[in-house]
């Protein structure tokens, strides 16, 4: 299949090597259980996977318990007393009970197993075996928590389940590494939702990595936030494919009309989605990873961190989205919205408006997934066709084929 020809009649500036992209993709074969088994072995056991954010690990001792469905593994991610973020299998080294619950967040000096109170420090060392004289020949130092490779980049904490990762995180991320500056600092969680959908993880990721649908699927929830007379089809002004990942920027509609409660909430706090404040992203020192194409009337960026994480980032907010494959037919979607830290009641109103409006948009995005999955399972339409505006999907499948093709 040839390289994708340059788009015509579009404001889009394309960047990156598109030579491995295809605009016709066999989706049916990628939703089959046998393909899924290969994906677990060749993608999920090899990739650097974001599991949480630095915003959720604000201080020494902060921790989160994260279940990673494709690996069927529970991970404890903790910021140590030395400020280093580490990940461990969430498994007590005595008899294998979980030290923290999946989804749990908090701050602790040490992790004590609820079963027999074996206790582990934030760096993984076993620091207490209760009634230890009853263990014959036990060497505590050999029962540290089992580590998982863990590194931080920008706002995200990544793990890698390979025995020895083939690439460093910096290599894996390419230009996505080290280019966010302090953009995400000082944010707090304002909403968190999850849902289990009966659809392949591919289909769920795909729902969030193109803006083509927004004019149609979101007509009731986002009638005018993008587009406008200069860009009626809401083309992406900037779209970039990288070695493994891909991203685009969206442009605000200068004619967006705030509703009365949108206006009063955002006047009380700061302007958030679906209204977009003017930000001078060309100012010296503005992080290169935010509005990477330096488009004017910038609204937000969407980045697919291959394989299953999508970051949506705006001026004062961002949304972290995990699309965790459970099996070939099920995906657990976890969404966490963050915004600038509230200092006043007005900020809380702004946050509340954002999360309610955004939740409805998110639910619309979910609405297509199970239908598409069911369609693919019929087998009557193996291939889907993708536009230039859906180039992130093209990149997603090029990466799937590349990694699944590597024994």
């Amino acid at each position, binding site marked *: 299949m040839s390289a994708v020809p340059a788009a015509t009649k579009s404001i889009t500036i394309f960047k990156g090597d598109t030579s491995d992209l295809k605009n016709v993709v066999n989706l049916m074969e990628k939703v089959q259980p046998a393909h899924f088994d290969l994906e677990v072995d060749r993608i999920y056991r090899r990739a650097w996977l974001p599991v949480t954010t630095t915003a959720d690990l604000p201080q020494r001792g902060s921790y989160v318990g994260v279940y990673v469905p494709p690996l069927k593994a529970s991970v404890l991610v903790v910021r140590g007393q030395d400020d280093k973020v580490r990940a461990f299998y969430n498994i007590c080294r005595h008899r294998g009970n979980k030290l923290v619950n999946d989804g749990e967040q908090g701050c602790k000096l040490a992790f004590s197993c609820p079963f027999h109170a074996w206790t582990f420090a934030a760096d993984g060392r076993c620091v207490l075996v209760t009634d230890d004289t009853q263990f014959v020949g036990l060497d505590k130092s050999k029962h540290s928590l089992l580590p998982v490779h863990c590194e931080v980049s920008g706002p995200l904490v990544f793990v890698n389940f390979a025995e020895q990762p083939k690439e460093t995180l910096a290599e894996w991320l390419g230009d996505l590494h080290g280019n966010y500056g302090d953009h995400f600092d000082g944010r707090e*969680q304002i909403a*968190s939702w999850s849902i289990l959908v009966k659809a392949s993880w591919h289909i769920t990721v795909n729902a969030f990595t193109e803006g083509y649908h927004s004019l149609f699927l979101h007509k009731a*929830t986002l009638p005018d936030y993008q587009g406008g007379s200069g860009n009626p089809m809401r083309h992406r002004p900037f779209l970039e494919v990288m070695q493994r990942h891909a991203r685009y920027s969206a442009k605000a509609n200068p004619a967006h009309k705030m*509703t009365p*409660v949108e206006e009063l909430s955002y006047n009380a706090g700061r302007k958030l989605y679906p209204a977009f404040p003017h930000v001078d992203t060309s100012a010296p020192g503005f992080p290169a990873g935010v509005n990477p194409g330096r488009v004017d009337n910038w609204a937000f960026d969407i980045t697919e961190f291959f394989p299953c994480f999508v970051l949506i980032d705006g001026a004062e907010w961002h949304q972290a989205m995990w699309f965790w494959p459970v099996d070939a037919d099920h995906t657990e979607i976890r969404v966490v919205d963050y915004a600038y830290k509230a200092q*006043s009641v007005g900020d809380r109103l702004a946050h509340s408006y954002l999360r309610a409006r955004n939740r409805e948009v998110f639910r619309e995005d979910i609405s297509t997934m199970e239908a598409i999955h069911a369609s693919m399972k019929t087998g009557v339409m193996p291939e889907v066709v993708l536009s230039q505006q859906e180039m992130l999907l093209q990149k997603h499948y090029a990466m799937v084929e590349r990694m699944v093709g590597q024994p």
Partner: protein
Amino acid sequence: MSAKLPQEFADLEVWVAQWALPTEKARYFWLLGRSIDELRPFYDAMLPRSPQIIAYLSKQPAGGMTGPAQVLYDLMLTFVETAHPIELKWKTTDIETPVDPARLQFHGPSAARYS
């Protein structure tokens, strides 16, 4: 025990029992259980009072509200989180979707009191 608003908002007292809700989750499912015709009177009552409510709440300690101020805060957040069906001119209080909203799970700040 009936919750009370600050005295100057006594005109909104009638909404407190059902609409002064503590979490995003509670507000959302309350909204979904209402018709547009049930939602509209609440919207119409709250919108013109919003500037005074914001002015009043802004004098309270953020994150440390109690008593009548807390009730007013909950009522205002319910207003902010339930206004969109009216303002976007929906025919119902929910989007048109085949996905049952009860499938959505709420965590962290979506399930807890937000203050």
